[in-house]
């Protein structure tokens, strides 16, 4: 089944967006509201495999929801992501409940990633210290075992402007992002990891700029002009313009940051409660421009959002205005 938004999922998306805006009106950033927008009924698959520029591994994140609730894979069931030559088990739980993530080694020739739910009672326990092949209570495969999805990577993203470390001094400034368009029907979006410091305290959080936040953002036309208030907010006013990452992208971006920092990133970087007010702080904004290509998922799923993506990174700096004396 080729992925396509159904009417019901569009309605769910609109309702979900409204809910998120309401939830974020109070400007709280925590993990409690990080359920992705999934339908209330049916079996829903969420997955993304992202290949970042220059990286020799892809970040893979996946989750399954049943009637809107995340399904925990237990008892030896787990996601397996594989290419023609490599394979990895998604053992790490993501910030989103019921999500799983891993890095999958790839090279430039890899185009497709196969995702399967498998039952591997010994391999699933490999992080335990005791003899897992000798002492193992195997409840047998769960209902999701055998279900699968496949995603393909779109062409790589090449950002041509602005220059790295470009400085902005007002949230009404705009970032004029340019990239080499491919125009093969792929969808574009931006994920951002923002870290701010006012000299005493810090804030870190993740935001997404997609078609719901900015009209026509998803077009692969080579240019997007985005206001800085999509990334920086004033906690005294609220953050109605921002859309904090709330679905598999959160897992994926956290995994990507972990990969890029060689494991030196806070595992809750994108979920931290803010302490410094971003608009009054110096902020480093890591922008990840992502080209997404819808994938295919098993007919056993009622609906899903399964994508392969390629990304490139650009860092810009926000410096707060100097207050008048």
């Amino acid at each position, binding site marked *: 089944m080729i992925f396509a938004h159904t009417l019901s999922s569009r309605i769910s998306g609109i309702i979900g967006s409204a809910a998120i805006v309401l939830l974020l009106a109070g400007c709280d950033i925590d993990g409690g509201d990080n359920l992705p927008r999934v339908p209330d009924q049916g079996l829903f698959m969420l997955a993304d495999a992202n290949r970042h520029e220059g990286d020799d591994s892809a970040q893979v994140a996946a989750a399954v929801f049943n009637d809107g609730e995340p399904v*925990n894979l237990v*008892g030896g069931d787990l996601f397996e992501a594989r290419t023609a030559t490599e394979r990895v088990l998604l*053992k790490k*739980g993501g910030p989103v409940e019921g999500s799983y993530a891993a890095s999958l080694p790839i090279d430039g020739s890899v185009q497709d990633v196969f995702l399967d739910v498998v039952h591997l009672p010994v391999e699933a326990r490999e*992080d335990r*210290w*005791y*003899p897992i092949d000798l*002492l193992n209570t195997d*409840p047998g495969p769960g209902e999701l075992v055998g279900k699968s999805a496949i995603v393909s990577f779109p062409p790589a993203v090449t950002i041509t402007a602005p220059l790295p470390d470009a400085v902005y001094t007002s949230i009404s400034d705009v970032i004029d992002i340019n990239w080499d368009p491919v125009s093969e029907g792929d969808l574009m979006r931006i994920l951002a990891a923002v870290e701010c410091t006012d000299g005493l305290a810090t804030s870190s959080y993740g935001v997404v700029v997609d078609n719901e936040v900015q009209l026509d953002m998803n077009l692969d036309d080579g240019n997007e002009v985005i206001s800085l208030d999509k990334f920086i907010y004033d906690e005294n006013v609220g953050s109605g313009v921002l859309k904090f990452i709330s679905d598999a992208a959160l897992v994926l971006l956290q995994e990507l940051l972990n990969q890029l920092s060689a494991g030196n990133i806070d595992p809750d970087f994108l979920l931290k409660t803010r302490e410094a007010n971003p608009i009054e702080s110096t902020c480093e904004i890591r922008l990840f421009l992502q080209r997404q290509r819808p994938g295919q998922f098993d007919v056993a799923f009622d609906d899903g959002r399964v994508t392969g993506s390629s990304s490139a990174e650009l860092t810009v700096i926000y410096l707060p205005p100097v207050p008048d004396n």
Partner: protein
Amino acid sequence: MTFISVCRWQLFTMLVIFISFTIHADNQQIDGNLLLTGMDAGSTDNFKSGRAISLHYNYYFNNWLAADAGLLLTGKTLEESSEDIVGDYRTNIQTQALLLGVKPRYRLDSPYEFYGRLGLQYWRTELEVEEYFGPGIPEGSSSATDTGYGYYLGLGVAHYVTEKFIVLFELSHFKQLDVFEGDTAYPFDLAINAFSIGVGYRF
């Protein structure tokens, strides 16, 4: 059974026979000890502290060296519960060991002596794992037992309440090697570190 393990077993048996034929009614000691133990399987295990008892028989060849034969019995030691992608799990471990070695000592002019223990152990260890997967999925437990060899070390101080009765304080280290070797691709060495207090009787 390998050639090496056969040799170990023969050596162990010969030592026991040797000790039994050389015992006579002087310069002997028995002691019983209560141990506070810490188990370490050398990996990410997280055992709680446990309890054990040990019994030792010593035959003194001379004023500073004795044969040491003993028995170690640990209680069931629980691990802290852990959670991973599979579910919740918790292990517990219990072991018994026969000890055979030597016990050098240094008797002070005061009613104290320092001593050490060094020897081999023949152990029997049982490991059990309980697993829980969540609502609707059957939970369960599984266990396995293994036997093998290892060594033990100890350092202690004894206080002579009288010339017959002794109070002992001791730090001990018991090492079981290659637990479940041959049964699994994931064998481990088990270390038991212990502090003990005991009483002894010289006769």
